[in-house]
């Protein structure tokens, strides 16, 4: 089998194979990873997380299904799982499109390097599409490797026919593939239209906003769209708009159409799915072809220098000159570097997803209530994500080669740099997260409990910031960090096994003592003491610390591994 695949690959043109291999390694946004990063290891770790999720989905589906005895409830459970898996797949594909933003289109580097070579534009196009499709295919396979068998089996059993499973299995995989292709092609179409309609320099700016907007949209839709679990719910007039505007329900309809269980009154959902995938596919093909034919030359012809924005160039002060320099460097790196923006957006997305979920539940309840434990826990988790998110993103270097300037201008003691880093961490992670929580807690009563919670939250933010600073004797965004080295799976499980239970315990304790001012004060005092203790510990260690900037790793020559 392996030799057959090898023979088939060898039949492909050599230039296509070489380009495809290169693009495959760069399918994650070129700016999103350091060029020295272990891309294969990085993708492998994500694949591992997706496989784990698939196993969790399969287990939950099987256990949930087996525990329900009533036929109607089992049917509702199956419908819920079907929609949930389709929506989750679409979310993963959406996140993949955000990560690999613009990589399918010709970029300036490709054009500059490949244009002088005898490589046809369509070879570049096919190589890029193949590379993206390969990673997308891998995501589909890994996320559904277990659930893609168990759920069709359960749906088949629910149908009560021996052929149910054999009908459901291909229907499931076809639906999942179609839903993924639809979303991916839709994003390509939007990117392509923007590239075709606007001058390149405007496109580049617009593209960055589109990337963040897409990110927010995918997460917002996933977390906020209501779950309709029974055919009756779906058929009601008041839910019609949800089905009409939610592509995950269209593909849910498609799956049920293919397995033969779709209600006639919902057949329009499947129809929408077919129309959607047809439109997205043709849109993507047209845009890609036009982009490769028209914009490749335009990419070279357009000037590099984008005039700076006119008007006010306000430079706020964040303390002394060093604190201001580092805080401004942090915020500019976060907002202007796609690599950091996307990475931080992943963490912020969790914060906003929780905030949106609470906002949604608050909008649906008219009367103000006491602070619930879930809310307390959510705000603690939001704070954790914001602080650790910024801490991990600030470990990604923005330009290792440019660090010389910080080293030749290092005129102050390391503890002053660490103090400036602390300030940046508090300003750009603790403060925004605290403000969001404060805004969300406004409807809750009584006010003294809200104030007490916000005090505890601020102290927790301080504790987390101090924990983040332990051993971090670097200027943010200047350290040598190569993605692919860290163990994503370890972080993933550490969050579920440590952070979640810890946040739940703190929330539970706060909830229990909320009406006992003395106990609440004790809790705040304990938090304050821990935060201050960590602050003193970090400050004393910073006195003897040496600020360090790591160098680029030794250059290695990447072999293509292709034989002529």
């Amino acid at each position: 089998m392996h030799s057959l695949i090898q023979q088939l690959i060898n039949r492909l043109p050599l230039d296509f194979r070489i380009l495809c291999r290169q693009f495959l390694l760069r399918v994650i946004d070129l700016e999103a990873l350091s060029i020295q990063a272990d891309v294969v290891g990085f993708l492998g770790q994500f694949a591992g997380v997706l496989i784990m999720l698939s196993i969790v989905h399969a287990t939950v589906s099987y256990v949930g299904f087996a525990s329900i005895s009533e036929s109607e409830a089992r049917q509702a459970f199956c419908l819920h799982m079907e929609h949930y898996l389709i929506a989750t797949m679409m979310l993963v594909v959406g996140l993949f499109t955000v990560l690999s933003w613009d990589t399918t289109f010709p970029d300036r580097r490709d054009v500059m390097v490949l244009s002088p070579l005898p490589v046809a534009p369509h070879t570049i196009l096919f190589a890029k599409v193949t590379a993206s499709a390969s990673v997308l295919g891998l995501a589909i396979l890994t996320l559904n490797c277990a659930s893609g068998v168990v759920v069709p089996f359960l749906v088949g059993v629910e149908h009560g026919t021996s052929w149910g499973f054999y009908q459901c299995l291909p229907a499931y995989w076809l639906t999942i593939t179609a839903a993924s292709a639809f979303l991916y092609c839709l994003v390509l179409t939007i990117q392509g239209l923007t590239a075709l309609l606007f001058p390149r320099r405007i496109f580049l700016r617009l593209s960055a906003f589109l990337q963040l907007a897409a990110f927010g949209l995918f997460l917002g839709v996933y977390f906020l769209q209501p779950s309709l679990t029974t055919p009756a719910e779906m058929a009601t007039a008041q839910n019609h708009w949800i089905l009409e505007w939610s592509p995950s329900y269209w593909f849910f309809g498609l799956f049920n159409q293919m397995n033969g269980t779709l209600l006639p009154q919902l057949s329009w959902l499947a129809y929408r799915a077919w129309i959607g995938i047809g439109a997205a596919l043709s849109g993507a093909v047209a845009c890609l072809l036009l982009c490769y034919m028209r914009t490749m030359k335009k990419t070279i012809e357009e000037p590099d220098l984008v005039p700076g924005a006119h008007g006010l160039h306000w430079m706020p002060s964040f303390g002394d000159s060093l604190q201001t320099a580092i805080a401004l460097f942090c915020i500019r790196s976060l907002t202007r570097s796609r690599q950091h923006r996307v990475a931080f957006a992943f963490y912020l997305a969790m914060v906003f997803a929780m905030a949106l979920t609470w906002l949604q539940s608050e909008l649906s309840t008219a009367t103000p209530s006491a602070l619930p434990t879930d809310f307390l826990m959510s705000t603690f988790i939001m704070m954790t994500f914001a602080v650790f998110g910024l801490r991990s993103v600030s470990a990604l270097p923005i330009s290792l080669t440019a660090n010389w300037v910080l080293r030749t201008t290092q005129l102050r003691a390391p503890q002053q740099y660490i103090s400036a880093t602390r300030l940046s961490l508090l300003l750009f992670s603790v403060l925004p997260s605290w403000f969001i929580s404060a805004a969300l807690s406004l409807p809750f009563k009584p006010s003294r409990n809200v104030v007490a919670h916000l005090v505890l939250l601020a102290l927790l933010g301080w504790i987390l910031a101090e924990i983040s600073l332990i051993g971090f004797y670097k200027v943010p965004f200047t350290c040598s960090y190569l993605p692919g080295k860290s163990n994503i799976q370890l972080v993933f499980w550490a969050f579920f096994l440590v952070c979640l239970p810890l946040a739940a315990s703190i929330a539970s304790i706060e909830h229990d003592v909320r009406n006992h001012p003395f106990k609440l004060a004790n809790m705040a005092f304990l938090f304050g003491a821990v935060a201050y203790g960590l602050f003193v510990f970090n400050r004393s260690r910073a006195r003897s610390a040496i600020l360090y900037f790591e160098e680029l790793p030794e250059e290695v020559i990447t072999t293509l591994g292709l034989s002529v």
Partner: protein
Amino acid sequence: MLELRRVSKRFSGIAAVDDVSFSAQSGEVTGYLGPNGSGKSTTMKMITGLIEMSAGQILYEGKPIQEDLIAYKRRMGYVPEEPYLYTHLSGAEYLTMVAQLRNLPARQSMGRIDGMLRLFSLFDDRHASISGYSKGMRQKILLTAALMHNPQLILLDEPFSGLDVASSLVLRSLIQELAARGKVVLFSSHELDTVERICSRVVILHHGKLVADDSIERLRSLMELPTLEKIFSQLAVEQDTELMARQIADLIHA
């Protein structure tokens, strides 16, 4: 005065700079020459404190620079060989950041930054992202960053790289002017004509070793050669350049 005493640097046992000693006096421009890979930039990086020496001593005003590195850095301005900058910042933002890191008073630094950007014809593009700057524009940003704090010791590693003719002429005069005002200028370049015009003395490095350290006049008379180019060719160029050119043309069947 800047003085290097028996300075060596080894990378994995291989000597990049081997037992180099020379000095650069205030009020004169010292040219630091050598073919690619001879150890010029490594020496520059050791002088700036970016990399540590394997052996030897670097002294400034008679004191080892490691004794008070911060005070030394305050008095030093450095233009590196490659124009590596934080390209997500604009020119003005980058220079302001450098001024803040150097703890220069805001008003003074703003005046100097604006003035130098105007003189370098970069003022109109100061708010554009450095990622869009040409090599010459980046070089001007590096020069501004290196000079705005009025350093006493100026280290210039290939400062003419990417500059247009007019800017090169300005820089050439600027280097001489700064030396005339008592600065120590150590200047590395491959442009031998420029070096011959502005340097009072040259230090030539070959395979990490010092092969010449004298005034250009004395080298000319000692070696009985008319130009610095001829002196350099004799001391540091091993290949027969014309033969090599012919071999390349033959190889591609030109």
